[in-house]
Structure formats: C-alpha cells, structure tokens
C-alpha cells in the first residue's frame, strides 16, 4: 500500500471542506481533499442551492398568479413538477462541476472514497480503486451532518421523507405534514403550499422559527396561516401509524388532533456525521453527535481539526466556510480571529423571507442590556409599495449605553439579500451614529433598514 504525503488533508468536500482546501492551497500548503460522495456536499447538491431553485419556481408561479394586480392578463399557470425538479438538479450539477474546477485550479488533490483516521497524522482512504494511505501533520474533518431520523418514521420515499426525498418528488402530495418548524421545514412548507399541497407544520416549540426574534416568528406564522398553511406549535408527536395508504399522526400538547397525511416530511434537526471516522481511541471528543472544538476548531487530538456542521451549531454553510478559513489560517501561522456567533447571519427562504443577525430582542434583554429597539414596516416604504412587496418589516436592536448594533431582524421580499448590510455594520463595530449618517439609495427597500435605525432613536422619517 502506497502512502502519499501532504501538508494538510481535508475530509469532506462541502462548503467547509472545499473552502478549507482552497485557503490552504492559497497559503502554499500541499493539500488533499477526500470526498466519499459529491464535491459541494449537502449544501450544493442536496441543500441550500437546489432548494433555492425549487423556491424560485414557486416564486414565479406565485408572481404569475398575482399578475392581474400588476395589470398583466395571463391564463392560469400550471406547474410542471418534473421540469421544476429537473431545473433544480441541473443547477446543483452545474455548481458541482464548478467545485471540481476550483479544486483543479487550486491544485488540490481530490480522492474519492471514505477516509478514517489511522494513527497519528495518517488517514486510510477506501474507495473503488481500493485502499490507500495519506499522511499529513494537519487533518481537518468536515464531514457535515445529516437529517435526524425519528423512530418509526424512517424515510422510505413513500410515506416518510427526509429533505432528500422532498427535493426530488415524483408528485405533489395532497396532504403533507412537516415535522419541524425550523428554517428547512418552513421553506418546504412554502414550496409545497405554492405547488398546491395542503401543508401542516408540527413544531414542538411554542412558535415556528424558534431561534428567530419573537416578532419575526409571529409575523411569518400569521402570513403562512393567512395563505392556508396549518401550524401546530407547542405540539409533540404521540405516535404514528400507516392506515389505508395514509399516515395518522397523533399530536399532544396545544392540540391533541390526529392529522392525516399522504406524506410526512421529517425536518426535525440534524445529527453530525461522526461515525466511521476512526475517532475511537483518539483525543477527539464527541458530544451529541458533534465534535468538540476550541475557538480555532482544534479537537482534543493534536493535528486533528473539525469544522462546519460536524463541529456544532449554527448549522449554516457560511459558518462552515468561515471556520474553514480560520482553521487553516491558524494552522498556517496567521492570526485569525475566532468566529463570533452573534455575527453569523441566518436566512430562511420561505414566503415571506426571513433574515437576521445577532441578538434577538429577548436574548438582548435577558443578557441584561438596556435597549433601543426600532421597527419599520415595508408597507411604509415607497419602493416596496411600487413592487407590490409590502409584506414584512425591519427591526433593529441597539445597546442603549454603547450604541452597539446588537441584532437585526427582517421579514419580507429579498431580505436575505439585504441582511449583509447589518452584518458588515456589526463586523465593523459601527454604532447607531454611523448608521444614521449613512446614505441609503432611494427608492429601495433597503431604505427601511435606515428607517428602522432612525426609529430606534425616535426619529424615523416616514413612519
């Protein structure tokens, strides 16, 4: 068995792993990447990107449906599910090829196969071509995570789906029940509702999108219910059985109904891919399926690092990529700064969209801070009215003492494209003074971001 030597090896080719490999190569490290499935990981092949393609189709359908309100007469629009899914897969395939190209460009040697630690500084890779041994003083684990499977609801592609089956449906289920009211559950709820399914969402917490600000959760819940999506919050699953081709789901909590479903989509969190990595007997510590790491992604085993979903929440591709850069730069002797979880933005591409960064109002209050809170509705924004996009609002939370922008929360059309303004503001540590002094272009929906800051200091101009 031959052994190849590298400066750094990355295990896993998702948004954490492939970014780590590129950064390492940029810093002059001889780098290898091991991937057992597809470059790009879940994000690109089975997550962020293909769902965005599906949701775009839903947007187009919805927009055509409202064409009359813009003075355009069209006939009834009919979704072609097969074409919608094909487009989504084509998008994923294109990006997958893009990552392969990036690996070539950055001279990262890619191995297809499953890697496991095999003694200090060594990985054993088993693939179709057999086994080989790789050697490097630094090994970054970026194996990601997968959907949590609920007992009795193992995905079978028929009655029980994970996100994986939900991305490539043959038909739109008549009655779809989604277990989990987080970002993934709510995005699929928006998509399948737009395609004509009768959608219900079951969430254990008292509100959907429970990590978002309570006003955001409330607004989105109201919008979904208005559209006809049924929400069962504060409900636990009592049991399920399949009878006469349908799933019976017994709820317990705020509702004790029994729901009838043709398909149940389980989107109840994720578990880390910690198995078969050869972690046993090493200093790597695993807790609740995630690897424990320090601020620079170092595990308990010298020379072994973990980033991204494998290393814990928040489970976001951009968090994985950022950790990748921090981890590699630290290895290369630079002085990166630890990731500040309060500066990681989060986006939900539901209808309406949700975007946020930093403290929610409640988190800031329980941290004992004195607050200045400002809110501005898109209904008072000229561009939003012209666009027919008056749904939603912008909310900002400031520390009254220091003027620090603690958090920002947005609901509405394309807010996921706007949150970066507040993310940069937080990164630069601007106070309300610089934000108030900034000039935002008119007419744009982003003006609402300025107005919300003004509102926090009781000087909003258009509200």
């Amino acid at each position, binding site marked *: 068995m031959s052994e190849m030597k590298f*400066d750094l090896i990355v295990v896993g080719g998702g948004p954490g792993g492939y970014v780590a490999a590129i950064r390492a190569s940029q810093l002059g490290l001889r780098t290898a990447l091991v991937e057992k499935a597809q470059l790009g990981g879940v994000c690109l092949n089975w997550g962020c990107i293909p769902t965005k393609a599906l949701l775009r189709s839903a947007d187009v359908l919805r927009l055509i449906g409202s064409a009359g309100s813009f003075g355009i007469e069209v006939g009834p629009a009919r979704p072609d599910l097969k074409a919608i899914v094909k487009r989504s897969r084509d998008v994923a395939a294109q990006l997958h090829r893009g990552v392969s190209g990036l690996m070539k460009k950055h001279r990262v040697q890619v191995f297809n196969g499953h890697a496991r630690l095999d003694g200090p500084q060594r990985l054993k890779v088993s693939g179709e071509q057999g086994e080989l041994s790789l050697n490097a003083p630094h090994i970054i684990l970026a194996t990601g995570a997968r959907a949590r499977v609920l007992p009795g609801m193992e995905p079978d592609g028929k009655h029980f789906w994970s996100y994986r089956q939900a991305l490539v449906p043959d038909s739109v289920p008549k009655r779809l029940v989604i277990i989990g009211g987080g970002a993934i559950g709510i995005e699929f709820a928006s998509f399948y509702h737009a395609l004509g399914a009768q959608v219900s969402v079951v969430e254990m917490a008292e509100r959907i999108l429970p990590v978002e600000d309570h006003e955001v959760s409330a607004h989105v819940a109201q919008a979904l219910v208005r559209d006809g999506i049924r929400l069962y919050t504060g409900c636990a699953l009592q049991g399920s059985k399949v009878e006469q081709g349908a799933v019976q789901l017994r709820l317990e909590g705020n509702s004790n109904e029994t729901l009838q479903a043709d398909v149940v989509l389980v989107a109840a969190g994720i578990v880390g891919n910690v198995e078969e990595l050869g972690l046993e007997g090493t200093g790597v510590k695993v807790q609740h399926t995630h690897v424990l790491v320090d601020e620079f992604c170092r595990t308990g085993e010298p020379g072994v690092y973990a980033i991204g979903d494998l290393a814990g929440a928040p489970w976001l591709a951009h968090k994985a990529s950022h950790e990748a850069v921090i981890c590699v730069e630290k290895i290369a002797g*630079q002085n990166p700064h630890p990731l500040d979880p309060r500066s990681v933005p989060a986006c939900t591409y539901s209808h309406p969209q949700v975007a946020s960064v930093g403290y929610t109002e409640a988190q800031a209050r329980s941290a004992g801070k004195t607050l200045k809170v400002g809110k501005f509705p898109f209904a008072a924004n000229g561009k939003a009215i012209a666009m027919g996009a008056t749904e939603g609002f912008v909310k900002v939370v400031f520390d009254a003492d220091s003027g620090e922008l603690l958090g920002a929360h947005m609901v509405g059309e394309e807010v996921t494209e706007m949150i970066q303004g507040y993310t940069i503001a937080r990164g630069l540590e601007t*106070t309300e003074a610089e934000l108030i002094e900034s000039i935002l272009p008119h007419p744009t929906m982003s003006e609402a971001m300025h107005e919300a800051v003004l509102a926090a200091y009781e000087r909003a101009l258009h509200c």
Partner: protein
Amino acid sequence: MAKLLHMPEVSANATHAAIQNWTLKEGDTISAGDCIAEIETEKALVELAAEEDAVLGKILVEPGREVEVGAPIGVLFARGETDVDIAALLAKAGALAAANEPVVDDAPVLQPRAEVTPAIDAHSGRIFASPLARRLAAAKGLDLASLKGSGPNGRIVKRDVEAVAVAAAVAAPTPVSTVDFDEIPHSSMRKTIARRLVESKATVPHFYLDVECRMEPLLALREQVNRTAARKISINDFIVKAAAVALQQVPAMNVTWTETALRRYHQADVCVAVSTESGLITPVVRNADSKALSQISAQVAELAGRARDGRLRPEEYQGGSFTISNLGMFGVEQFSAIINPPHAAILAVGATQQKPVVENGELKVGAVLRCTLSVDHRAVDGALAAQWLAVFKGLMENPLGMLI
C-alpha cells in the same frame, strides 16, 4: 533584500521632518519594533520603529537636517547581506517614486507571525479603532493610544477595550471614601496639556523679565483707529503685532531649541493662547509682523472662535516660536506663564491699569500695562531677551513704529 528607509509622516499634514538623532549606528542589527531613530515634530519626538528584522546599512540623512516626508533617510540591509549597491537602490527608488513598493512576504508559511500589530499608523499617527471601541473607551475614560488592537492590521475593536476595562476593574481596589466628589475623566486634550506643561516646566530652564509699558499713546491711537475701523482693534491685536515686529527686529529671539541646533525662523509666527471649555490651545498668526492690525484682529477672532468649537486644523495651532498669553480681561495685573514647547518664549500680559507714575520728577496718573516674558535659557540669554523686551516696550509706547 536591501530596502530604503523613508521619512514617515509623523504628524498630520507635515510635509517635512527632521531626524533628531539616530539611536543606532551603521552596521547595527535591528529587530522588528526597535527604535531606529527619533524624529522631531513640533509637538513631540516620535520614535521610528523598525517594521522587521534588518541591519542598519547606511544612514543617508544626518541629524537635524529637514527632509521631505517620504524621502529616503537610510538603507536597511537584510541580515547577513553585505554586497549592496546603494546607488542603484536609490536610482531605482527615484524611478519608482510614484509607484508603491510591492510588499514582499517571503516568510515560510508555517512560521507564526508577530502576535500584535500596532494600532497607530507610524506614518500618519492615526489610531485605527472601530466606532464602538472609540465610544466604549471614551465612556470608560481609556486612552485609545494606550490600547493594543487585535483587529485587522491592529485595529482596536470592542474586545480590546473590554479586555483592558476588565483588567482595570480587577486591579482597582474599591475606593473607600466619605468625601463627596465627582471624578471627571481626562479628555485627551487635557492629558496633552498636562504632559506638555510638565515637560516644559521640568525640562526647560525658565527665566523671567518684567516690564511696564505706558499705554497713553497706544490707547489714543486705538481710539482714533476704532472710530473709523470696520472691526474694532483690541489692545491684544497691537501686542501681537508689536511682538512680531520685535521678533523681526531681534531675529536672535525668533528661535526654538533642538538638541542638535538652534532653529532660527525667517518669519514671525506668533501664537495666541485661547482658553476653551476643554482646555488651552494656541492658534498661530503667521507672518504677524507684515499683517495689518485689522487682519490680525480678524484672524485672531476667527481662530479663537473655531478653537472654542474644537475645529482647528493641526497646522493652525502647530508651529511658531513665540506665544502671547493675555489675562488682562480678567483684571489680572501681572503673572508669569509657562513656555509652550518648543517655543523659546511666552509673554504674559496683564490688564492696563491707572497707576501713579513719576514723570520728569512729578507724580502723575498713568495708564500702565505690565508684561512678563518667560524665556528658555537654553536658546536665549538674559541680555538678548532684555534687548527684545526693550524693542517691544518701545513699539508699545510709540505704536506708530509698528505700523511703518
């Protein structure tokens, strides 16, 4: 690879600067952070710190000579480097003067870099700090210049301020006091005043000369001028003018002291002390000897106004060789002032008062102004200062003399 060492922009808007002294000699080994030379500005001495390990190969500018900011002042050799063609290097620098030198970073990849980079730009003196860090530091009374920045390129960010604040909170014992007081944190202006005045009083050997000026002719002239002038001329405007003219007539008094040389100025730039809410500042009236009284009056009023708003630009309060401090409007009869470094003298002006005077053996009532000159004895001796004061007194008592 050998590199040129350039004159940094040590104070804002300064186009020239001089090496006060080289702290190392040719051939000395330098480690990153070492002080290579001290550069003189009007406000202070600034250390020129090495950015990387090197050897001071060649000194190009001797101490005391003013050169343009950006001009080559020395050559740094890499350690172990000997065979360097300095002429070629300088020629190349001349050819590339406009283009920025690319940063060559050939450090091995896996070697740790220096942990802390400075938050203060060695060239401009600008402190890089986030708005939030600035506000938190102000609230906690911390001087930004005393903090180390951990942000990109040494920018001071929130965590740096908080780290210091936490350390200070741990270190400071809880004050036990039964006496009521308010603690007003020092502004950076207050700190600068304190530092400079301590430095002046402790390091500049002061001596003092007192003089009385008879003011009747000047008061009569002023009344006459003000009857028609669009802008009222104050006694202080006459004093600024007289001092400047006297500096031109006694040029040996128009000097500042530096460690290596006496700097003698060609123009008479007179500073006027202005009291503001946050402290004292001395805007400068340049070429005051050749300015009309109305110009001086307008300029002093305008500078003082902006000084009180805190809106003076550095070049408006830096420079000059001479200060006037006037407390006459408060009824102060006489006082002596502390020299404003690097100036060589300051004139403390009291109030014009009705006083008994003896004239031709007769006792009369006269209008008298008392002035006290504080002088830096390193730069100016007693006789010279007395000579200047006599010229000044002469101009004050025969004011037409300063207008010709």
